């Protein structure tokens, strides 16, 4: 008898995955709308602002008028002239970065908290302005050039991180939830009783992820480029390869997380255990270089670190395949190991 079209079970399995996902409005929200809200929020919070003005206080006395004029001419400082106790109170509550005073003998006195970066900066700026005004020469000539380039802002750093994080959470949540629900409802057992290829069943999860991958990438990177002018410097081919491998590796991880759990609660716990360290260590929100050197080899082997680093290299620096090869190697290794393990550990009942 003629087989109904299209007959290939891998095609059918993948179509079914996609339909189930599209018909689940909540899943669509978490994959597409939520990351945009996050990007918009963080993009606005960390948008580029004019350089911060430091606020300092001068103690009101005979000298304070002339000092105030000198400091305001220097630039970068906002000066409040206050009486002694008010000035100290504002310093203690963090409203001014430094309190300056000149005593009768002409000695300058600075009060500030050296642990506060703005305190140290204010001491440097105030002292520099006052000493120059008093006639201090600069023995070495200085030329300054200021750089303010696309690619070095927080939003530029964050968009590739957000994309990597989204690849991870869609891969792990989308797959773990669906597999565990099917196991719980005995649907997996029913499928295992058919001649269906078990590898094809698992592979259909990877393939269906690819369908959504394109949409997710376009939404996030497109949003970054249009709303915040985030640069896209690398080749599109390399970018596609990085996202593809990353998405497949996280899907493999999702299958592994879901390979034995029988309840959604159990799978959620495991998924969080897998994802939390990567949210923290992999440099999504801030650079992973902030962690101690001893941790760096471990951090660089995490799949999210490799994905995010490769995405940043491609988008921000325009790195090619050769520079990104180590990252891609790590991602590929995760894909092979997680999918292989999931296939062996997977429980069908």
């Amino acid at each position, binding site marked *: 008898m003629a*087989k*109904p079209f299209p007959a290939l*079970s891998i095609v059918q399995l993948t179509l*079914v995955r996609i339909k189930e996902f599209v018909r689940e409005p909540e899943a669509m929200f978490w994959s597409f709308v939520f990351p945009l809200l996050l990007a918009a929020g963080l993009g606005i919070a960390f948008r580029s602002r004019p350089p911060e003005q430091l606020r300092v206080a001068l103690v009101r006395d005979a000298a304070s008028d002339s000092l105030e004029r000198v400091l305001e001419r220097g630039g970068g400082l906002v000066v409040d002239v206050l009486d002694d106790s008010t000035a100290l109170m504002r310093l203690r509550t963090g409203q001014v970065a430094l309190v300056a005073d000149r005593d009768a003998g002409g000695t300058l006195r600075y009060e500030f908290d050296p642990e506060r970066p703005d305190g140290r900066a204010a001491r440097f700026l105030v002292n520099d302005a006052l000493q120059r005004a008093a006639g201090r020469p600069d023995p070495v000539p200085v030329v300054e050039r200021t750089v303010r380039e696309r690619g070095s802002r927080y939003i530029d750093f964050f968009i590739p991180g957000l994309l990597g994080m989204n690849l991870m959470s869609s891969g792990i949540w989308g797959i773990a939830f669906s597999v565990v629900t099917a196991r719980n409802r*005995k*649907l997996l057992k*029913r499928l295992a*009783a*058919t*001649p269906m290829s078990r590898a094809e069943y698992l592979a259909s999860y990877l393939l269906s992820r690819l369908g959504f991958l394109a949409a997710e990438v376009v939404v996030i990177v497109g949003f970054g480029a249009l709303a915040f002018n985030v640069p896209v410097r690398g080749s599109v081919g390399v970018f596609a390869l990085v996202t593809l491998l990353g998405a497949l590796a996280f899907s493999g991880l999702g299958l592994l997380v879901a390979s034995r759990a029988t309840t959604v609660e159990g799978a959620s716990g495991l998924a969080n255990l897998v994802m939390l360290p990567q949210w923290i260590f992999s440099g999504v929100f801030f650079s992973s270089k902030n962690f101690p050197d001893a941790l760096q080899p471990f951090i660089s082997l995490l799949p999210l670190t490799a994905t995010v680093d490769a995405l940043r290299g491609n988008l921000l620096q325009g790195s090619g395949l050769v520079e990104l090869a180590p990252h891609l190697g790590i991602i590929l290794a995760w894909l092979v190991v997680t999918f292989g393990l999931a296939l062996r550990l997977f429980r069908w009942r």
Partner: protein
Amino acid sequence: MIPAADVLPPALEVTGLVKRYGDVTAVAGLSLAVRAGECFGLLGPNGAGKTTTLEICEGLATADEGEVRLLGRAWRTDAGWLRQRIGLALQETQLAEKLTVYETLRLFASFYHAPRMVNDVIPLVGLEEKRDARVGTLSGGQKQRLAIACALVGDPKVLFLDEPTTGLDPQSRRQLWDLIEAYKRAGGTVVLTTHYMDEAERLCDRIAIVDHGRVIAEGTPRALVGSIGAEHVIRFVLADGAEVPSALLEALPGVRVVAGTRDDGTELQCTAVHETVPALLGLLAQRGARLADLRTHAPTLEDVFVSLTGRALREA
């Protein structure tokens, strides 16, 4: 010449099956043979080991001891070949709620080398109007018919159904029975489990009564009912919870078996109802017990189970 059914090799042959779960022995040395083209029923109370037996036959579980030969082959060596040739409905599968009836069947069809056309299977189970409805919107009976459609879409030689009508309303049950009979008329072999004796009597050519993981009786429904040697069953309930010692009841003329029923009544299987009833009424009058209810009926499979185990099928 057409060979008689019992010279054909059996469609399913199970010998000495044992399955243990920790301390529980779910199946304790069960054997049976199902002929090609017959409907064979495993009848027994909850926990008797019916599902476990069926799942071993379906290749979903492995036995600790014993052997299963299905269509002449073993699961260990021919799993792929066998899966192409059987269809089944598990006791408790919930199909994906977000897919439609058609999509679900098309998915299952894609697993088989020579499936039936999905559009031919849908009318078979009477779901034409629900073709494009999501599974989540179907009634219990419709879901169960879809589960059977999933079993039929691979055009199986042997159909395994685990409690196909449990929890369904009478109309849905009859629809399913028609469906199973149609499959059998077309030459299919059916193995089903049930704890409804009416279902077993109506559908099955032969029945194995299973209790505590063993077959305690086997045969056609008629032969099984005949085997207890009773022509009638008298069932009575006494008012005000009065009781009569069963030794006195057993001593009544023509009584073979005495058993309690779920609703505090008593059942007497007897060979000579015209002698037993007057004697029973005399005994009750003599003890001052009043009758709340008294009826007689022809023996059923339920009574076979009672006479074999002393327990009622549903409460056991």
